[in-house]
Structure formats: C-alpha cells, structure tokens
C-alpha cells in the first residue's frame, strides 16, 4: 500500500461508516485514525449518541468481528477475558470472553471495578490474554473503543491516569446538531435502515498501519511535537504558564509517541508524506486531553483540559519563530 491508497481506503471506510452515523465527523475520523495508528480510543459522551452503532458499522465496513461489553460493578475480569470451563468431554476448555473480537466496545468502562478495568486494559496493551498459565493472542486488527459517561459519577470507578494513558485518543462525542438530529430521527423512524457494506479488509487495515510508520517527520517538527508535550509539564523549564498554573501532571512519553503517530496519519490524510506542525496541532487535543491531570484550581476556575491545551499550543507557537529574521 502506498500513501495514496491509504487515503483512498481511509476515505472509503469513512464514507461507508458515515452512511449509518449521522454527523459526528470528528468522532468517526478520530476512531479511524486510532484504527490506522493501532491505538485504542476512549469516547466520552452522553448515552444514545450512536457509539454502538459506530462500532457495529465500522466492523461491518471492515468485515471484522465486534463485541460490546457493558461494564457493571459486579463484572469480573473473566467476564471480559474468558475462562476455562469443563466441557461435556470432561476436558478443560477455554471459553473466550468478549475481548476476543477485532473491534470491542467497552461501554461505560468506568462502571467496572478497578480489578476488571485492569484486566481489560492489560489485554488492550498486551494484545493477548493469559488464563490458567496459557496465553491467548487477540485478533489483529484489534481496536477497543471504551466509553465513559461524563455524568452520573456515583458508583463509578474513574480510570486512573496510568490506565488512561493507554488510550491513544480521547474523543468527545457531542450532541448532534438540529439538522443531524432531524436526519437521525427520519432514518430511525422510517422504513429505510441503512447498513454499512464491507469496503475494506483486515489486511488492508494492517497495511495502512505499516504505511503510517513510514511517514517522515523532520527534526524541527519533532521538536515542535516534543515542545507541545513538555509545555504541559507544570514544573518543567519549558512549561507553558497556563499549564504551570492548572496542571498537576503533564503528558507522558507515551503521549509524545501518540502525538507523532497521529500526526503521521493526519499527514497522509492531507496527501503529504511528511508530518507538518499543523498535523500535530490537529492531533493534539484528542491525544493529550486525557493525559494531563488538572489540579483543583482548574476545577475551581472551570478550566478544561482543552483550554489548557489551547494555551499550551499558543505558548509553543509563540516560541516557534522563523529561524531567519529578515
């Protein structure tokens, strides 16, 4: 696969998914970028915004298996990973859990206990499950889309920072606009019920991932990416003033990796073979918004992570001057 084919494939999948999902273009693009970048996506939004439909449509478009796990506090790790059971032949048989799918929707992951969350996230990171001393590899491509409900925090177990860091993107799923809502209502209450058709294969997805890795990043662009990350560190010498005031912790090295990878995907989508600073800026919020931990003052002042990131970007831009003063 070459970059041009990458773009075409990406657009094909997007078009197909958008047949079923009305609006939510950024979310769809974000999910597809996560898929191409081999990263998992955390979706945050109110219930009923089409998250399950998105997963199902994506799986259909790629002809991949998918599963949905609705997390509850009483869910055990084995409910996710699977467990050994005795079959009719009195033999121990491993019964695969819902994690064994190409695309997994981990719905309301923050309702699971930390123990179950940990099992889930470990599987996400390791791309495999170990049960009874036996390791079971997960299918490739493997994409987890976890959702969190920003309201109804009672009885939830918010994901710790270390676990959040394992998500490539955190996407905010907004309410649809009035026009989009009208379209949704018309589609779902009428006779027509569009279904996504298969437009790409799992092999193509894997090939897309290989292409992403080959995209070039110039030293100055890499420096810009690192500056963005470093500027989120509240006590660093190169930290942005805003970050210093409102951040408790900044982004991790994994954040820098994700930022560059996402930038590469954006570059390919823009028809380029190199990462530009603009690509990094586009990728910055979904990559870093869950990786910075805000302090009490930010909560008190109503400052969001996105606001901090906007300020960080402005700060880095202000220091990124034309090297030739003429």
């Amino acid at each position, binding site marked *: 696969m070459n970059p041009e084919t990458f773009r075409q494939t990406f657009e094909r999948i997007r078009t197909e998914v958008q047949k079923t999902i009305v609006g939510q273009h950024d979310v769809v693009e974000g999910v597809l970028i996560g898929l191409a970048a081999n990263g998992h996506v955390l979706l945050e939004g109110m219930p009923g915004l089409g998250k399950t439909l998105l997963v199902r449509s994506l799986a259909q478009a790629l002809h991949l298996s998918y599963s949905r796990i609705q997390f509850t506090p009483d869910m055990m790790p084995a409910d996710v990973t699977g467990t050994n059971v005795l079959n009719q032949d009195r033999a121990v048989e491993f019964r695969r859990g819902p994690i064994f799918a190409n695309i997994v929707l981990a719905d309301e992951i923050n309702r699971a206990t930390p123990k179950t969350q940990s099992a889930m996230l470990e599987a996400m990171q390791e791309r495999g499950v170990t049960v009874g001393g036996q390791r079971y590899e997960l299918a490739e491509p493997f994409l987890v889309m976890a959702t969190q409900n920003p309201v109804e925090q009672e009885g939830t177990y918010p994901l710790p920072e270390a676990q959040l860091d394992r998500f490539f993107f955190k996407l905010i799923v907004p309410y649809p606009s009035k026009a989009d809502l009208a379209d949704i209502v018309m589609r779902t209450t009428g006779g027509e019920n569009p279904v996504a058709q298969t437009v790409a294969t799992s092999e193509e997805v894997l090939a897309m991932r290989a292409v992403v890795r*080959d995209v*070039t*990043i110039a030293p100055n*662009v890499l420096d810009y990416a690192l500056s963005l990350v470093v500027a989120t560190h509240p006590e660093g010498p190169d930290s942005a003033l805003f970050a210093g005031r409102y951040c408790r912790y900044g982004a991790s090295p994994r954040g820098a990796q994700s930022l560059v990878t996402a930038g590469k995907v954006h570059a390919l989508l*823009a028809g*380029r073979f*190199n*990462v530009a*600073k603009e690509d990094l800026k586009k990728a910055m919020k979904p990559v870093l918004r869950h990786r910075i931990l805000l302090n009490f003052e930010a909560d008190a002042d109503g400052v969001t992570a996105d606001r901090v990131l906007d300020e960080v970007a402005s700060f880095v831009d202000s220091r990124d001057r*034309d090297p030739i003063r003429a």
Partner: protein
Amino acid sequence: MQALPPLKPFNRRVRLVRSWRGLAIGATVGAAIGTGWAVLDWFNVFYAEPIGIAAVIGGGAIVGAIWGALGKISESALAQSIDRRAGLEDRLSSAQTGQGAYQDQIAEDAEARLAALRPAQLYPLRFGRWQGGAIALSVVAASIFLLGNTPLLLLEQAKQTQAELKKEGQKVQRVIKENLEDPREKQSLTEAEKRLADEMRRYQKDLERARMSKEESLQKAEELTKKADDLMKQNAQASLKSLETGQSQLEKAEQDKLNQANLGMVTPSMAKMSDAERKQALAKNKAEQKELERQLAEIEKRMAEIQKQLKNPNLSKAERDALEKERQALESQKKALDKQLKDAKDQEQAIQLSKEAQDIFKKMTEDPIYKEMQELAKQMKQNAEAAQAGKKPPMTKEERLALQKRLEELANQLKDPKAMQEYLKAMLAAMKAGGAMGRCAGLFPGPGRLPLPIPWAGAPSQDQWMGDTGMINKFDKGVAGGGKTTPTIVSGEKREGAPDQAYVEIKAPAQIGNRSSVPYIKVLPSYRRKAEAAMRHDEIPKEHEKRVKEYFKGLGQ
C-alpha cells in the same frame, strides 16, 4: 534518490533582505549615537560636525549592511523559514532529512511547490520598524544639532554676537595654525605648549560655535593669554640660562686654546685687548704695584718701630699686649699685600704675554663660524631678554627658524674642539627654548601690548565689549563731574526690585581706555583699603567677601 530542491536563489534573497535589515539596524544605532553626540554638542561637552554625525549614521548603516549580508544562513533554517513563509507544511525541512521510505516523493513534492515560489515574494524588502527607527532617530539627531547651531531662533542682538564670536574664532584658528600647527615646529612642541594648544583649539571651537558669551570669551582669552605669557617667560628664562651656559663653554674653549699655547696665565679677555688697552692696563698694573709697595714699606717701617718698643723693659703689660696685637695685625696685612703684589706682577707678566696670545686668539676669533655664532648668540640674547621683560620678541618666526637651521649647519661644520661643540649645543638648546617662547608670544602676547587676535582682549580701542554685556552697570561716557574714568559699580547691596542676578563677575582684562592714564597698580592700594573697610563695616554681604578678596588679590599679583 531525488536531489534536494535548490535554495540558492532564496539564500541570495535572504542575504539581501538581511543586509537591508542590518543596514537599518546599523543606521539606527548610528543615529542613536549621533543623537547622543548632538546632545553633547548642545551642551558644549563634545562638539559635533554635520559630516561627523552623518559619518556615524552612514558608518553604522554600512557595518550593519555588511554584517547582515555576511551572516551565516544554514540550509535547515532557510528551509524551515521557506516552509513557514510559503505555507509548505514542513515539506522542505522534511525533504532535507534525507530519510524515510517516501524521501523521493517528499523531495519531488517540495520541489514542485518551490518552483511556484519567487524569493522576493517570501522575503520582501519591507520598510519596518528598524528602518523607521533609523529615519526617526536621524531626524532627531539632525534636529537637535540644527536647533543647537542655527541662529534662526535667536534675537537680532544674539545673532550679531554669534557672528562676531565666529569671526573671532576664525582669527584664533589662524593664530593656532600659524603658531602651533606649523609642520616645521609641530614636533618640537613641549608638553606645556601642547596643553596650551589643546586649550586654544577648544577655545577656538567655542568661539566658532558661538557657544559662549562675550564675558566668558573674554575671561577665557585672559586666562589663555596669561598662560601663554607665563610659558613665554619660562621659555625666555630657559633660553637665557642656556646662553649663559654657552658663554661659559665658549670661554672655556678660548682658555683651552691659550693653554695649548702654554699661555695659561693669559685670560681670553686679556688676549682680546688692543695695544692701547694693553698699554693702559700695564700702566694701571704698574701703579697698583707701586701703591702696594708703598703700603708694604709703611707696614714694615711700623713693624720695625713696634719691635724696638717691645724691647723696652719699662713697658706695662697692657702696653706690651697692645703692641703685640698691632704687630700681629700688621703681619697679616703684609701677607695679604705680598700676595696682591705677586698677583699684580703675574698679571703684568700676563699682560706682557697677551700680545703673544693675541695672535693665537686672533686666529680663533676671526674664524667666520666663530664670528657668526657670536652674532647669533647676541640676537638670541636680545630676543630672550625682550621676552622676559614681557615684550614681544623682536625675532619673527621666519627669522627664528632660519637661525635654528643655521645653528644646526654650524654644528655640523664645527668638528673641532669639544668645548666649542658644547657651546653650540647650549646655543641650540637656547634656540629651542626661544622657539617655544616665540610660539607662545604668537598666541596671546598679552593685553594691551600688541594687536591681538581678539580685539576686545585689551587692544586700546573704543570697542565697548566690556560694557555691552547688558549685565553690569556701566556708563559709556564719563559722568559729568565724575572724572574721566569709566566707573563700574558693583554694589554690595541688592537694589530693590532688581533681578536675582544683578551683576556677573567678569575676570576679564581691565580695559585701557583713552580717558585714564593712571596705572591701576597706583590706585589699587587705595581701592583695596576701601574694599577692606567696606567689609569691616559689613557693607558687603558675607557671601561676597571671599570674591572681593580674591579680586584684589588677583589684581595685586
């Protein structure tokens, strides 16, 4: 692999634009310095010339332009800059990495984008803040300079004053040029003369710029005149001393000559006597001898009598002691007379031998070099004596330089006796001191003595500079019944309604008008006494007492 896109045209353009910016920065810095200079000029601290200020600004601009054009431009920085300015989304800088699977495509892409760009588009020659700053500061510098030097803003009287001061400044410049900047004399300037020359130049500039009042110019002229006068006297003294040394060296040389001819007892003055003088000297000598012999005879006679009286046994002790005392006194007198007689006889012999010495000495004195040197020494002595007496040396600069040259020639010709060489050395030293004296005399010969470069500095004229200050009470004409002097009232009491500064102190030369011929030194004591009495009676405010004392002290020196 695809070659990297060529950036040379952009490099050249960047150099041009940098040069333009550097020029503006340099000009701004230069203009800032120029402004500072103009301010210093305004306050008379360091005079500026228009060409100087322009040179500073221009120099700064040139240095800045060169610095901008020659500055290092790295390829990566240039690529990043083009990326940024042309919105190439980091294509060029990525192409420069030379790495990655899609390097060829990146380079091709970058080149295609670059081909559509013109360097002048990306790097235009802008008129920015530096350029604006350079022009603004240049205007400020020029304005300050022009405002400080233009007569347009002055009143008519002030303009006239400025014009006069400038005119006098030009005169002073001529004086400096003639006396202190003559290439023939420049190297022989002494330290004191150099210092004086510097002060003169400064004064000349002050005058040319008309940055001083008339009072200040008079004060300064007087000060410099005094310094020049002192220097002239010092040099005259040094010249005379050197001439004295030279004279003693000459006498030594003459004596050496006589010694060589075994006529050591003959002095050069004897050798120079004519026959008549010799005869007269011999007669005088004889008479002296005769008188000495007579005195000796009398003393011997008296001593014989004393000897006889001492043999008398009837003498009392007191009488004996008195006789003994007298005998001793006579003995010492006799000894002295014997010596005088001997000397007289020796002198007689020397006078007799001087005839012989005369021939030897004649050869030496008739030597043209010797004669010329004597003549030169005479001229130099006259010159130095005149200077020491406070008069202008009669020798002109041209004459002095010619004399110096001739002395140097003579020194070269005169290889022979060492003493004569020493004489010439002393003559040359005297000449040099005389030269310095002449130069100083040419600067400010002193008030009232000679026509000066500054007419109001004491020349006996009707010019009323001293009275035209507008700050002191001065009557241009004699007050009826008030005598012929020109009184200048300095009251110790402030008049009612008078401004804060009722008078200014002027340490300028006293003007010699045609209405008084009484030397001030004669009237000074009475005025001083009056002033002292006024101070005693508290008629002069305490804070001015010191000033009054200094004034009279200064006049008395």
